[in-house]
């Protein structure tokens, strides 16, 4: 993995006003990953991303992108990075094409790239309209077009769907999913919603209160999100004892029986047992612990009273 790590941070720390906003974060992003960078609002996502782009200087720790130190070779790194930080930045009085042209002049890429990126984000039709009249979704797509302009190897998208309506979110999601296939780009995408990156990310990192509390493949996170079966029955306590005495591993909480093994045979066995013992079975329902709840559990428990 070491050879194909495109971005790596070591003990990355940022202190703002005496408070550690980012605290010893070690990120590792491999080539071709779609890395979901998750955390609640204020966890340090944007601050981390700003440091990755050289917009803010780390208080401590190091950042290496493409094997180069950001402090020494910022410009060489940024030449291969496209980014969209927080809410979109644009020049409202200019048209979409002029916005891209202003950036293109700085990047020095061929003019044809403008039409290409506009068609990728499907803004060709609105290319010559002033951006201030764009919807938020269109502005965000323009932001992605801007990020793609330099044909980057690493795309950094900070909360690209923030504030969008469901249709806009869907649109951006489809757009992002389509990118790696087309150009083999590595993507770092941050969000405060797991559901948003769940469908596209290959790896996730979860940050909370400035600390990276989880970093692994999305599959591992999914494995932790197994569901369980809830049974509501008459006389739950007695039923629970009966089931236990017959060797079924079930829990009992708040008058409801729960089984964590959810394969068909186990469930059928439990129900058969209950019926045989003459308990009334009112409901058998599956409760799927969503990634969302795992995410909340990881990020939320520390702070709740």
């Amino acid at each position, binding site marked *: 993995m070491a050879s194909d790590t495109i971005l790596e941070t070591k003990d990355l720390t940022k202190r703002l006003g005496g408070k550690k906003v980012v605290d010893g974060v070690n990120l590792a992003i491999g080539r071709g990953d779609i890395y979901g960078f998750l955390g609640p609002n204020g966890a340090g996502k944007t601050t981390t991303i700003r440091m990755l782009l050289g917009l803010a200087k780390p208080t401590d720790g190091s950042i290496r992108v493409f094997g180069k130190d950001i402090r020494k070779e910022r410009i060489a790194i*940024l030449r291969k990075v496209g980014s969209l930080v927080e809410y979109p930045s644009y*020049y409202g009085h200019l048209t979409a094409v002029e916005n891209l042209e202003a950036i293109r002049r700085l990047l020095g890429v061929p003019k044809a790239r403008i039409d290409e990126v506009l068609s990728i984000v499907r803004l060709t039709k609105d290319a010559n309209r002033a951006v201030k009249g764009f919807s938020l979704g269109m502005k965000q797509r323009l932001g992605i077009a801007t990020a793609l302009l*330099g044909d980057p190897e690493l795309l950094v998208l900070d909360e690209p769907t923030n504030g969008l309506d469901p249709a806009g979110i869907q649109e951006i999601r489809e757009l992002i999913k389509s990118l790696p296939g087309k150009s083999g780009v590595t993507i770092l995408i941050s969000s405060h919603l797991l559901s948003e990156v769940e469908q596209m990310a290959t790896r996730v990192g979860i940050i909370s209160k400035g600390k990276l509390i989880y970093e692994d493949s999305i599959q591992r996170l999914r494995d932790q999100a197994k569901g369980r079966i809830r049974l509501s029955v008459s006389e739950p306590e007695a039923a629970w004892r009966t089931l236990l005495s017959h060797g079924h591993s079930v829990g009992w909480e708040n008058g409801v029986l729960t089984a964590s093994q959810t394969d068909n045979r186990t469930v059928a066995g439990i129900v058969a047992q209950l019926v045989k013992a003459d308990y009334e079975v009112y409901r058998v329902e599956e409760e799927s612990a969503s990634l969302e709840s795992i995410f909340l559990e990881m990020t939320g428990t520390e702070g709740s009273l």
Partner: protein
Amino acid sequence: MLLRILSAEFLKIRRKWLWVLVVAGPLGVVALQGVNFGLRYDYLVRGKQPGEVWDALIGDVSMLAMPALLMGLAIVASMSAGIEHQMNAWKLTLALPVSKRQVFAGKFVLTALLLLVSSALLVPLSAAFGLTLGLGGGSIPWSDLLTDAFYPYLASMPFIALQAWLSVTMANQAVPLTVGIIGMIVSLFAGARFPDWVPYKWPQLAVSANDPLYAVAAGVAFGIVVFAVGLTEFVRKDVK
């Protein structure tokens, strides 16, 4: 690279009324003197030698042009930096493969160039004004016109650098604009009250002193110093 940044800057000021301001400044100054000379034609022009009239004309134009320049540089600096502040485009620009130094230099050079155009426009506008007063084409004192247009501009360099710096570094443009307006007022009253080393007096000295080149040189030199200080601060600061 600086040329690329500048070409992007010039693209960004499209449809921003900046060019209108750049032309309206000198045009307004000369037009006001037009009113002045029109109303007081008998006193100022009739029966005088062309040389005398030219002297009065150039002196009066530069008297008005100076506060206009000091005010204008604050507005132009604020507007060109405001383009970035408005939609917080700094983070967009500075996450691109460009050096922060050159981005800052780009804003300064843009402001300085626009004001250079304004100052330069004073030359043809004043000349045309003289001709409409019936002064002969052969009598145009080109060198006086040129020095009175460009010396105050060069002596104002510290203020161009200061306003560019303040406008870029502060999101709230009220502060730099206030500094600019106060600066203009101070320079209006700088005349006899301040010693020659006060920079607010330099634009005036650049047209009135026996040896105006001292004021010009001091302006350019101190301008470079202010620019360097601003640049250092901008490079060090995290991007908002």
